[in-house]
């Protein structure tokens, strides 16, 4: 975090919007501008977004009718490039239950506004699309995240039509797919409009895996909600639990021991390696090359066995705890990790060079699912998908957390080389394939570096009593991209509001743009190369 930048933005905003800002609050690397009027949101957000050059991290709505005077909206913008700042624009929605939409200026905001409309019943004026997201056949007038709504309420099913975008013209057909798919994957519905084999339009309808996680967390103890965080998306358990723990630790002012920070990095990177290998295997399957997939799945299995011998869970459940980590890594474990990852990496290199020598495989990936950089930027895409489209975002460097270090000082030459590398990335399935291969190697090196655990202590203790209504942002980089969790503590260490935004939420909208130059049989390959979680999106 850089206090110089923090002051700079504070002064700049205060100068420009003196009559609009009621209050400014700081909380670590967060700076909150509390507006007098919700109608000033578009103006201020647009300034923060386009003039200060930030990315929309999340939009949080809370029902604070009981403690303040209404629903509170918090627009969170992340400032990257070594500045490590989160700018919050906060405003209270008046009795009218309307708030101005910012989706036309900041397209990434559109989905958040739909979510707020559905879960809180606040209407974003000016947002052209307010269709339902996760409450498929729920009756009208049910707003689960309002405090007056009780978690266990059972509502009757009501038939509701979902309006898909209709493509008309000679020879246009619709192909509905899902929610139950042909493979062993999660539920979701895809509606293709095709002309022959060419995809003219693709619309996704998700929400089938909606389990009410955010509402459920409000009834849970802090320790139990950690288990819930691990199960937001089973294969991102470390990333999500890390983000959750960091938010709680930030609220209660706990600093965890260095060793625990490094262990979080080790598990986070182990998670990235086994999942990237799994995705690469999936790409190979969907490109019709079962042999490559089979070889890569062998490596994944070895890594899952390694996960288990360290943490007692094959998918790394139970690694984190608030105030540290639950499982330590002994010297013997370290040696096991280094030797296993070493052999896996040697085999990995052999398989990858074999795959790259197969022209039929490489041709299949090249140009499939190409994502235009502009679209990726506008929709706020994160993670591997963004990096493969030449957008240099990575929470591990942009907002260093746990044992991650800010990016080393680079010489002007290195900076230019990095920029050229980014420019070269074309955003197709092949680029995503290559970025993943590169990240597997980087992560392996990072694990080895972090395993030098000469410092002591894995746990500092739980927070005793947290001041009610304090809040903080926790974040991490899962193998899918930036994960942002925001927690507001209620009375007696309860959770007042738990807002989760996984990378999948940001990345799902891009799929409709990625397939526009493809044919229907390419879709599984493109989908797999994007590696999106349904559960992490639907919550």
């Amino acid at each position, binding site marked *: 975090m850089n206090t110089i930048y923090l002051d700079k933005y504070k002064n700049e905003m205060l100068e420009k919007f003196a009559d609009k800002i009621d209050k400014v609050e700081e909380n670590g690397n967060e700076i909150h501008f509390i507006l007098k009027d919700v109608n000033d949101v578009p103006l201020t957000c647009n300034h923060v977004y386009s003039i200060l050059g930030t990315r929309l991290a999340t939009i949080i709505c809370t029902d604070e009718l009981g403690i303040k005077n209404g629903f509170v909206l918090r627009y969170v913008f992340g400032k990257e490039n070594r500045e490590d700042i989160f700018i919050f624009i906060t405003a209270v929605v008046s009795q009218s239950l309307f708030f101005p939409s910012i989706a036309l200026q900041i397209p990434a905001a559109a989905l958040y506004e739909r979510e707020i409309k559905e879960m809180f019943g606040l209407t974003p004026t000016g947002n052209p699309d307010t269709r339902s997201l996760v409450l*498929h056949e729920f009756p009208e007038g049910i707003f689960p995240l309002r405090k007056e709504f009780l978690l266990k309420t059972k509502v009757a*099913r009501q038939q509701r039509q979902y309006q898909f975008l209709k493509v008309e013209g000679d020879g246009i057909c619709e192909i509905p797919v899902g929610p139950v798919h042909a493979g062993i994957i999660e539920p979701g519905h895809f509606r293709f409009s095709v002309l022959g084999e060419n995809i003219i339009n693709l619309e996704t309808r998700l929400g*089938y895996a909606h*389990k009410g996680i955010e509402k459920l967390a409000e009834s849970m103890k802090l320790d*139990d909600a950690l288990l*819930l965080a691990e199960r937001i*998306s089973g294969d991102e358990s470390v990333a999500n639990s890390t983000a959750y723990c960091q938010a709680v630790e930030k609220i209660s002012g706990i600093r965890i021991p260095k060793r625990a920070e490094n262990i979080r990095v080790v598990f986070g990177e182990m998670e990235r390696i086994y999942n990237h290998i799994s995705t690469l295997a999936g790409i190979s399957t969907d490109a019709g090359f079962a042999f490559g997939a089979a070889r890569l799945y062998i490596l994944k299995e070895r890594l899952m066995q390694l996960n288990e011998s360290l943490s007692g869970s*094959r*998918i790394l*459940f139970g690694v984190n705890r608030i105030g540290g980590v639950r499982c330590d890594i002994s010297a013997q474990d370290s040696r096991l990790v280094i030797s296993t990852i070493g052999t896996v990496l040697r085999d990995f290199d052999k398989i990858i060079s074999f795959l790259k020598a197969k022209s039929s495989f490489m041709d299949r990936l090249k140009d499939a699912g190409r994502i235009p950089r502009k679209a990726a930027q506008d929709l706020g895409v994160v993670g591997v998908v963004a990096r493969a489209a030449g957008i240099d975002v990575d929470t591990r460097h942009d907002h260093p957390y746990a044992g991650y270090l800010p990016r080393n000082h680079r010489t002007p030459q290195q900076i230019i080389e990095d920029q050229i590398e980014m420019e070269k990335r074309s955003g197709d399935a092949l680029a995503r394939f290559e970025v993943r291969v590169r990240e597997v190697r980087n992560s392996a090196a990072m694990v080895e570096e972090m395993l030098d655990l000469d410092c002591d202590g894995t746990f500092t203790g739980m927070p005793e009593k947290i001041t009610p209504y304090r809040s903080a942002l926790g974040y991490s980089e899962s193998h899918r991209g930036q994960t942002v969790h925001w927690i507001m503590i209620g009375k007696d260490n309860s959770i007042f509001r738990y807002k989760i935004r996984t990378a999948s939420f940001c990345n799902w909208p891009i799929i409709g743009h990625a397939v526009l130059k493809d044919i229907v049989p390419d879709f599984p390959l493109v989908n797999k190369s994007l590696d999106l979680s349904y559960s992490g999106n639907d919550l």
Partner: protein
Amino acid sequence: MKDKTKGIMGNSIETVRDTDSLFIPDNYRGSIAFNMESANGKRELAESVCPTKALLPFKENYSDLLLDYGKCIMCGYCAEITPKLIKINSKPASPVNTRASMIERLGPQIPSLASYEQTGNELRGKIQELFGRSLAIREVDAGSCNGCEVEITALNNPIYDIERFGIHFVSSPRHADLLLVTGPASKNMEVALKRTYDAMPGPKIVIAVGACACSGGIFGDTYSTTGGIGNVIPVDVYIPGCPPRPQTLLCGILLAIGRTLSHTK
């Protein structure tokens, strides 16, 4: 035996052939054992930390603690707070036929587990007897966190290679003999799950995979979940775990086939 000298690209056989190669580490959280001698006053403490209420409240007529494996997500919180009373065991809890039998009277009874290959071979025999052909499975995710999917996918990798036992995963319920269902059955998946079940030809076998599918697990029974697959379609076998490991999944399939076989005789 494995030929390790040729390396990953040398067509080496990676498939497990014996128990040793599928060694379960000691710290795996598979089942729970109680030492009732040190239960004094600790029982309530253990019950109070359980996030899914899997440790059932004490009743006068039971002298033992009761654990509902259908709810337990193996977080290990109870063992952490009362280490003398509760021990986590690495032997995985076994699949059962009825929801009620997941609530176990805990004593020393830990299920014995045959080797992966023995289980598979027994299963192959029974599938042959029942169908005279291979077994077709359809998997449905009814709102799981995708942890169970990771393990079901693992069954198809060259190490577990479930196809060698005559089991394959099919893409349509119309081709399926058996339905593997994961997740707490989210309300949004309720209709799709029912329709998938209806589309299957008889005899229909349904397996609920993981704590969520058995009882709703950590997601429980809320406005957006149905509190377990059993509330949507009839279930033949329940597999505990969060997520269950591939060996346990295979045991669950064996149990389901064995049961159907005994019904047809």
